[in-house]
């Protein structure tokens, strides 16, 4: 199953494909090179409004404030992918792999540190490179490590608490977006005085949710609540 199994594309088709692909590459390259040297940039707008956004990292400001709606939709896309994966079947049977002593010791040492690193990345996202997605990814990596050593959530936690953790990010985002409407006006228009606290709260819940969603995506199946796993 792993050997090279190119579809037996006939030779003339392969050459035609190569020619077409090369033409596409040349066209795209010409398009890129013919663009003007100075772009119509939004960087000036971002820099001008950076103080009012509540954070000092311009990428975080764009993600969580100026284009917050895109980030909200992205959390919804993550949830949709998880719903798709969950609808395809229950958790595959555990193969009973026994993690060796090295892996167990490594996981015991690494997972707490990774949680700390995730917390730092979340906090540092306001003024340095970092943010909710990076922190959530490190949390998910620690979750994947735990899954690989055979640990699973106890049955009590796989029902409602798991669902709450998965939905917390999107729920907090929408809730805050609605709450600020009487004060500011539009959905997700944070008042500039409270923007930093709101962004931190949204990022914290988003970190938890992203970590949980990515770990659940790795597990690949619907967790059976109340069962023996």
């Amino acid at each position: 199953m792993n050997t090279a199994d190119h579809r037996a594309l006939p030779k003339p088709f392969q050459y035609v494909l190569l020619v077409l692909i090369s033409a596409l590459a040349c066209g795209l390259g010409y398009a890129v090179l013919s663009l003007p040297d100075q772009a119509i940039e939004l960087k000036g707008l971002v820099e001008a409004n950076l103080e009012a956004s509540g954070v000092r990292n311009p990428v975080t400001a764009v993600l969580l404030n100026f284009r917050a709606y895109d980030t909200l939709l992205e959390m919804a896309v993550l949830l949709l992918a998880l719903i798709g994966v969950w609808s395809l079947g229950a958790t595959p049977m555990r193969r009973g792999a026994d993690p060796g002593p090295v892996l167990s010791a490594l996981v015991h040492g690494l997972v707490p540190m990774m949680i700390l690193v995730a917390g730092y990345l979340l906090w540092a996202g306001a003024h340095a490179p970092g943010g909710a997605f990076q922190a959530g990814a490190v949390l998910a990596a620690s979750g994947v490590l735990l899954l690989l050593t055979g640990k699973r959530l106890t049955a009590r936690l796989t029902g409602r608490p798991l669902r709450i953790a998965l939905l917390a990010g999107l729920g907090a985002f929408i809730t805050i977006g609605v709450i600020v409407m009487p004060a500011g006006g539009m959905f997700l228009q944070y008042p500039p005085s409270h923007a930093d606290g709101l962004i931190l709260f949204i990022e914290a819940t988003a970190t938890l949710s992203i970590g949980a969603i990515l770990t659940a995506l790795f597990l690949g199946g619907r967790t059976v609540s109340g069962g023996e796993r």
Partner: protein
Amino acid sequence: METITLLERVFDGLLMLTLLWLAWRALQSPDLFKAVVLFIAFGLTMALVWVRLQAPDIALAEAAIGAGLTGALLLKALAQSNELADRVSDDHTTDTGDTHEHR
């Protein structure tokens, strides 16, 4: 100063060539496991490229998500695919109909 710029240019050129070469080897490797491992290496090289493009946030995300989590997902899918294939071939070679795993 000229030597530093020249070194930077050489480094960037090497990075770009490594990126393209890793991608090509990952896509054309006959062994799927080697292809996935090369893809993880490709993701890590992409993280270096993001640092060179002054995008440290993307570098963090690419290293963790693009290389790490996607690589883990691919390896897990590969392992489960192999197990499914082995199970099917076991069913075909044994006469009994049960799928009792004896490994």
